[in-house]
């Protein structure tokens, strides 16, 4: 039961994240990336197998859980946090510089520079 809940939660977060990161405004994209990073953190955590009442310490109790995914998740959380902070700042910067929050900055014709749609 716990596994099904856990797996569908990861699936739901990923689906929502993918949907949001395909939006054309920067704010939903940032939210989508954040949801994706939540999903992957849970996924990494689940890769150590789901166990209740088990410490991540060897030798202290009969049942223990794998500590490595927890270390991986910690690292991933820290990195994702830094990246989110950076992408928010960058999104605000482009919003200020391009005058709109479209990901291509092309809502109005004024910013139609050389090169056309580059990405």
């Amino acid at each position: 039961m716990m596994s099904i809940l856990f797996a569908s939660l990861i699936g739901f977060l990923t689906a929502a994240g993918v949907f949001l990161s395909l939006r054309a405004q920067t704010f939903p994209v940032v939210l989508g990336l954040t949801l994706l990073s939540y999903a992957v953190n849970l996924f990494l955590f689940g890769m150590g197998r789901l166990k209740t009442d088990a410490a991540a310490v060897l030798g202290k109790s009969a049942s223990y859980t794998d500590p490595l995914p927890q270390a991986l998740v910690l690292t991933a959380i820290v990195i994702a946090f830094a990246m989110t902070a950076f992408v928010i700042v960058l999104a605000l910067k482009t919003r200020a510089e391009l005058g709109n929050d479209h990901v291509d900055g092309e809502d109005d014709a004024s910013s139609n520079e050389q090169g056309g749609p580059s990405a």
Partner: protein
Amino acid sequence: MTPNVNLAPHSFDQILALLVFLPVLSAIALIALHRAGWRLKRLISAVSVGILLLATIYLMVSGAGNTPQVYPMGDWPAPFGIVWVYDRLSGLMLLLTATLGVVSLTYAIATNEDHNGAHFHALFQAQLFGLNGAFLTGDVFNLFVFFEVLLLASYGLMLHGGGAARSKAGLHYMVINLVGSTLFLFAVGALYGVLGTLNLADLAVRIGLAPTSLYGVIAAASLMLFVVFAIKAAAFPLYLWLPGTYAETSAPVAALFAIMTKVGLYAMLRVHGTLFDTATAPASLVNLIGPWELWLGIMTLIMATLGVLAAMNLRRQVAYLILASVGTLLIALGVNTTESIEAALYYWIHTTLLSAGFFLLADIVRRSRGDDDWRIQPAMPRATLIGGLFFIYAMGMAGLPPLTGFFGKTMILHSVLGSPLMGAIFAVVLTTSVLLVIALARSGSTLFYRVDHQEQQVTAQTVSSFAWLAVFTPLILAAAMVIFALPLTGWLQNTSMQIKDTSVYIRQALDPAVSRLHTEEPKQPNPAHVSPHFPSVNQE
């Protein structure tokens, strides 16, 4: 270079540690000193890059990489601790990185480009830290961490100098790489979930022992890793971020970024090459990514050539030229024979050096001419020198003799003789080469011959002689690659054989633990399957 030159292991370890920790310590010092004068910052940055170059040359000349050297961090044995592995391929990549570092830092200082933002030097050092770490690590998760380090530094470097176009391209670059990082974590997590290890060599051993029921998950995770590396390498259809990013960022940063696409290709060689080696991996998984590399390489080459033809300014054209070289390299890696990897490595060095130099030259054109698009401008000062350099660079990049591009492409074509896709590869590589020559000839005549004689050039900026040094250096190195082609290809052939023979790598990387793996769990079908993780931990 004779094999089996044994350094004292101690001095060797210290150099490996130096390669990773020197740039990060310099970066920290530069952040702490960010209010200090420019001279001090430039001195720290230059000394750090100079030492890196000397250390990588020393490692290369000493022949230390002839057998893979292992440096366990904190002295934890291989599958449990994180190891750094130095072999010929890592050595080559480290040397290329340090060379590009010197070239692009020289140009940044000579043109005062580093004055456009407070933290250029700190970010530059952090970038080198990430690159060196990624080339040295022998652990998949550590590879992820170093990817993030180099990406985070590259986001900052890419935006260096500011401007709306740069921010827009930077946002695209960052978002696609964040998606890539998420995929990377999913792949790493899935591999750990089924195999219970993250060490590359240990993963290779365990894939060999895994039951067939796990092949699907292993293949899915490895293909996800391939997608991540394809984003980094800018393979079709994931290349759309590259032209904008490289064309909009400042010239020294674009020159340093010439190594960034190679990080993705390196990761494919290292990770997939080790995981799915013929000696260890099950036969159904061995050629997992080869066909993908081949076909995506062909598509990348075609699309990049169209991009070169369609580009509206020189910088964007050079960015598409990088993309074309990625396509060519992917084709050679996809064929995946000792000869094709040897040829790919030769072309790899050539394209990294020359595209970096070409970006710097495009910047000089932009400075001298006022702009580097195809509009008619007044004649630029020193047009003969700049035009001559452009001619040589264009010949090199398009693959005309007598420069390295020609020999690289010839070697690659020679290595695919007999491959089932020979016809398609020959047709695409030769046709795109002609188109590249045409496109570059057109750009050259537009930039240098179609001159507005009525007006005087008013916006021209001259650059100092050190900037010229930075533009000349890649050409001199390319000339040396032609003159010393025989010893170089001999060395690359040995490198290629080392890449293909991963059993030595695996044995060396797992050295402290290899006895444990083979004596305590003799021929267990899959230890990871029975109890997911680290079966031997219980026995300690």
